[in-house]
């Protein structure tokens, strides 16, 4: 499933990208009006990806990886995503095993629902769970925090436990609800951070990965993490 149908001539690609020798991975940053798409584009290009910012259905489907950014309110992001058929695209990609990475609100909308300012909105429901106000003395949770990742995490491979990533959010998922009991299905890898209380900081679940923090704004540590994702595409 990972072969790229729109890339019949891989030898055409730029051989000078050092981080990922050989064919650069094609990534679409999904442009639905609610993400800092330029930051994501630059950070991915910095680690050797061939990046396009678009909401074009065919391109988003064909890319090796689809990055779904997101800033602002949960409900507004969901409306924007639906208007751009992003819900459909994410669902189609995942059912075909094609990688998707959600960042910040782009992660939150993967859950069942979000509650902001008392208003409840439906998410994409890829995972059960609720995005709720973070209970901490100072909110937004803004700045660099550490992440507790599982030993076998691929997303955090090569990154020390004390490494910090840039967070900026007021809402979070406090409880991971998806239980996988079938021994033939790999259990999702869930990483946690604490600000006032523990919350989900990252998820690796088959082709669907996500981070609550901003790897594209997390300096060298974020670059390594994005490279780890590219290496799986």
């Amino acid at each position, binding site marked *: 499933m990972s072969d790229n149908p729109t890339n019949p001539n891989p030898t055409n690609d730029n051989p000078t990208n050092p981080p990922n020798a050989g064919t650069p991975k094609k990534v679409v940053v999904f442009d639905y009006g609610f993400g800092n798409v330029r930051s994501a584009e630059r950070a991915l290009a910095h680690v050797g990806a061939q990046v396009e910012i678009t909401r074009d259905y065919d391109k988003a489907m064909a890319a090796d990886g689809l990055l779904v950014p997101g800033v602002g309110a949960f409900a507004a992001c969901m409306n924007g995503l639906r208007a751009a058929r992003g819900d459909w695209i994410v669902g189609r990609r995942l059912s075909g095993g094609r990688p998707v990475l959600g960042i910040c609100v782009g992660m939150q909308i993967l859950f069942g629902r979000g509650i902001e300012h008392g208003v409840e909105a439906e998410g994409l429901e890829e995972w059960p769970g609720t995005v709720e106000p973070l209970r901490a003395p100072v909110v*937004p949770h803004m700045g*660099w925090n550490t992440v507790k990742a599982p030993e076998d995490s691929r997303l955090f491979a090569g990154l020390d436990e004390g490494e910090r990533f840039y967070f900026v959010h007021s809402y979070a998922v406090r409880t991971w609800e998806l239980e996988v009991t079938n021994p033939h299905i790999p259990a999702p890898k869930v990483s946690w951070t604490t600000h006032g209380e523990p919350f989900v900081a990252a998820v690796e679940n088959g082709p669907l990965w996500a981070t609550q923090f*901003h790897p594209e704004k997390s300096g060298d540590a974020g670059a390594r993490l994005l490279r780890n994702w590219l290496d799986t595409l």
Partner: protein
Amino acid sequence: MTLAVRVIPCLDVDNGRVVKGVNFQNLRDAGDPVEMAKVYGEEGADELTFLDITASSGDRETTYDVVRRTAEQVFIPLTVGGGVRTPEDVDKLLRAGADKVGVNTAAIARPELIREIAERFGSQVLVLSVDARRCPEGTVTPSGYEVTTHGGRRGTGIDAVEWAHRAAELGAGEILLNSMDADGTKDGYDTAMIEAVRKHVTIPVIASGGAGKLADFPPAIAAGADAVLAASVFHFGDLRIGQVKEALRGAGHPVR
């Protein structure tokens, strides 16, 4: 796991060049903002702030270009303030590559601007910049601090603590608290003012104005600031980012 205290160099940018003067007057040229941003990023700055002091709004393209070139090369959060008056100004800066936008005078004139920006782009993009001072003779506010405009030269009679609180309620994501009494003095942050604001807001507070030596930084955090901002001490090499972080770590504050 604890959130790290942020160390933020601020670059005052005029027509694409970095400047910083004592008490906002008598400006001196301290270099190319993009080059300085790269150096700060490599030295471990947790964020960068550009304050655009370009007088003519017709020259804003230069600022957008600086923001664009910085965002292409530096992968840490970038805040840009100065002359932001409308949600459209915010949109342009975000599109150029800013992650957050600082709003100051325009919000004093029309507080609804805070709500408009927060509703359209989210609270996390909005840093409310408060230039405050102890009330001079003849001015009285409940907290004893008042908001100023025009680089601290003009008082408004608005209570600085109440203003910070109100801005947070309107949707500001963060307060950049700049002491006009301390700014440029290098005598340390106004910790009493930081404490007063901290008690009344639950959004992050960035301390600004007065940093001169390493020992000035930990008291600002102890007073309740979540981040420390400084300009000239970094630009002229008096202090390095790493030294400030060591000083904070030594005082028991987590740093990156």
